[in-house]
């Protein structure tokens, strides 16, 4: 009953908060609310995200009540004390009592807010006793997930096509929030995330988990989540990281524990098979075909699909000294990167097969005609020889 009255008052006084409340209800009915009904923060599926939501709503309501008083007095004056109505001005202009009152009262309200805030923050910072550790590494412009101690790691990259970004083909339902491989997590387990980055600062944000933490190159940050319900949860990179900032979403697939275990076991088998692949020898045609696909996935965002780069920002590879020069130097640049520039070390990001294919492709595409090829074993030897 009390809540009804509260709502009535607010509905009457503030159209903005009407929108807020409508949004809340829309959320309750449909987890994937969209469009006009997206008005408020999602409650999310972790204890922390629910605490944050409650805190958010508490402060919102405090602000509503203060604004009812403040704007109320203001609008009353604007209607009642008009010169055009012949209202004569009073002449009071100070009162220590009133000043003290409206200094102390806000302090008390703030202290009241500070208690739950402190409690939530302490909980949010408690990364101890985690069941699973996941290392999250930000790259321009993709995320790498490593299941620490399991030997499983993979890149999670946007799958939305360039052509749909440039409006040449239709946009899919999860435009810009779909990836080739989501981060798979079990429900009901405390997962600790260790975040870092290889190039610039990124920020890993999943609203439904109440998690946002910067991934800072050279440093490791920690945060955690314990997901209550299975489902797909989508998020984004929240720290400006260059031209692909809007194109590196986070997708999490939360599975019941048994399904998660099955997935992890399959993943381990696949990882072993991939390591086996590196021992095979490929033909030039095979390498070129693999290379084109891998290049377009990992290199084309800077060096461009036509190998011409972006003048003044990223060098072209078509006719470049590296692509046409000795294989060892080419390997060095791709595997170790170039320090002090945007060129990343791809040695740890890509498989030996992909590295070999990309290098072969770069040496023989767009009119580059070195004619030689690099096999996965060459890459492996190069890495081990360092």
């Amino acid at each position, binding site marked *: 009953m009390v809540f009804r009255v509260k709502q009535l008052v607010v509905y009457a006084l503030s159209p903005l908060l009407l*929108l807020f409340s409508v*949004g809340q209800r829309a959320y309750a009915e449909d987890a994937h609310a*969209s469009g*006009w009904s*997206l008005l*408020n923060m999602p409650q999310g599926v972790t204890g922390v995200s629910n605490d*944050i939501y409650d*805190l*958010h709503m508490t*402060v*919102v309501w405090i602000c509503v009540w203060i604004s009812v008083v*403040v704007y109320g*007095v*203001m609008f009353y004056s*604007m209607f009642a004390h008009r010169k055009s109505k012949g*209202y004569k*001005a*009073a*002449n*009071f*202009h*100070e*009162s220590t009592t009133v000043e003290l009152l*409206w*200094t102390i009262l806000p*302090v008390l309200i*703030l202290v009241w*807010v*500070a208690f739950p*805030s*402190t409690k939530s*923050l302490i909980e*949010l910072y408690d990364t101890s006793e985690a069941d699973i550790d996941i290392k999250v590494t930000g790259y*321009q412009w993709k995320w790498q997930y490593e299941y620490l101690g399991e030997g499983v790691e993979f890149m999670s990259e946007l799958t939305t096509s360039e052509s749909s*970004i*440039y*409006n040449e083909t239709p946009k899919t339902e999860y*435009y*810009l*929030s779909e990836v080739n491989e989501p981060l798979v997590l079990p429900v009901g387990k405390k997962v600790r995330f260790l975040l870092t980055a290889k*190039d610039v*600062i990124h*920020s890993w944000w999943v609203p439904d988990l109440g998690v*946002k933490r910067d991934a800072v*190159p050279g*440093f490791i940050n*920690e945060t955690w989540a314990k997901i209550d319900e299975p489902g797909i949860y*989508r998020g*984004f*990179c*929240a720290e*400006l990281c*260059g*031209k*692909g900032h*809007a*194109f590196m979403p986070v997708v999490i697939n939360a599975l019941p524990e048994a399904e998660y275990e099955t997935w992890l076991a399959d993943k381990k088998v696949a990882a072993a098979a991939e390591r086996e692949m590196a021992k095979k020898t490929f033909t030039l045609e095979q390498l070129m075909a693999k290379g084109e696909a891998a290049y377009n996935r990992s290199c084309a965002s800077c060096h461009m699909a036509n190998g011409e780069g972006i*003048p*003044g*920002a990223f060098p072209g590879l078509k006719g470049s000294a590296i692509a046409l020069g000795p294989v060892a130097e080419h390997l060095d640049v791709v595997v170790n990167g170039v320090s002090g520039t945007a060129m990343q070390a791809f040695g740890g990001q890509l498989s030996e097969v992909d590295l070999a294919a990309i290098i072969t492709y770069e040496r023989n595409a767009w009119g580059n005609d070195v004619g030689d090829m690099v096999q996965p074993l060459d890459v492996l030897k190069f890495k081990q020889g360092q």
Partner: protein
Amino acid sequence: MAHGPAKGIGRWLFATNHKDIGTMYLWFSFAMFILGGSFAMIIRAELFAPGMQLVKPEFFNQMTTMHGLVMVFGAIMPAFVGLANWMIPLQIGAPDMALPRMNNLSFWILPFGFSLLASTLFMEGGAPNFGWTFYAPLSTTYAPDTVNFFIFGIHIIGASSIMGAINIIATVLNLRAPGMTMMKLPLFVWTWLITAFLLVAVMPVLAGAVTMMLMDINFGTSFFDAAGGGDPVLFQHIFWFFGHPEVYIIILPAFGVVSAIIPTFSRKPLFGYSSMVYATSAIAFLSFIVWAHHMFTTGMPIAGELYFMYATMLIAVPTGVKVFNWITTMFKGSLSFETPMLFAIAFVILFTFGGFTGLMLAVAPADIQYHDSYFVVGHFHYVMVAGAVFSMTAAVYYWLPKWSGKMYDETMGKVQFWIAFIGFNIAFIPQHFLGLAGMPRRYADYALQFTDWNMVSSIGAFMYGAAQLMFLYNVIRTIVAGKPTSVEKTWEGAEGLEWTLPTPAPFHTFSTPPEVK
């Protein structure tokens, strides 16, 4: 008194008169406002629908960066310096600014600073693309070569601000008319005096930050590079040690303007003058010790996080005092609603709203969700635009008759107000929704669920942009063809020395100091 302004271009190039320099500052800042506004229009046009329509993501990033830099350093700050040049001597009964030649220099290096900055738009590699907060290493190792032009541009702009601030401090402390004690100063003078101290304290910190970037980029140091023993987060600490006081540098003079206009059109003295002075000082002090609330997601230790949360919440107290004082000033006044008053009231309403979202952002756990989302974009536009720009517009309508001797068209002024007010809210309210729903800021493109509110926001932004062209038209029309007025006191309720002068204010004023009782 026979001495008048010089003839020709020399009047402006060699200007030492505070009114001429003030005028130049105001026109310069308006030009920058239009430039920065056109960048904003490109941003909003691109975001009107999902998908890349007009620009590429790399150019989009240049637009968000340049929009922020030009608006903060080119539009808002010089606009208030211009206002200070015009009004401080008139309000304290001084013949001019204390350091007229430095005044000339501080203005005339500005166009050079901004030419350096804007010229990068036409260079290979393009303009700065790392956000107006230019976080390392995106702005160092990963920046285009043109970043060096940006660094020197910031150095020049910073030098200009420091000189402007020194001049204001010297003027207020030394050139007050006899009897004009500190506690009789109009609040605009008070807020500017405090702002000037903030400027002198933090602009060198900004200069230090960009110099460290320059060294990292060109001379092999590693201040912000972990591979060489540095720390990228150090950059953020230094930047926000400048950046947080900077937001008060932008808003405090606006407080001063509103504290002049509301009493005038309420026909009642400002309520709680001395508490206003103390509250302003308290805000300025707090602004130095809350900077890391911009960094709640960087992984600070929890002790730091808690401290910055508590300190930030405290800002709500003196800010609240100011809002309560303005409203109590209106209470039982005899109110009329000319254009300056409309803008001033809108300032109080919208700035207070920005204050509420500011309080929400101060709550560190909740900030985990708000941080770097469109919620933040909505918040700071309520404070910066509805705060600084609305009060600046109010100030121009309020004092333009005194400056030009012409009266603006009240109907046109009111039409502009309503378009600006409605357009502004349509543009920025939806951004709060977008942020809460999960849309990060500085996104060139977005997922489909964000489409509707982005469209609304863009429409509002175009409306607000149109209102500014109307503002330009209104000002020019007033100067060229406005109804001449020679009434000393343009507004019946106005108080202060500037209203004892003839209208338009002569080239030289208060050559003999007035007596203040």
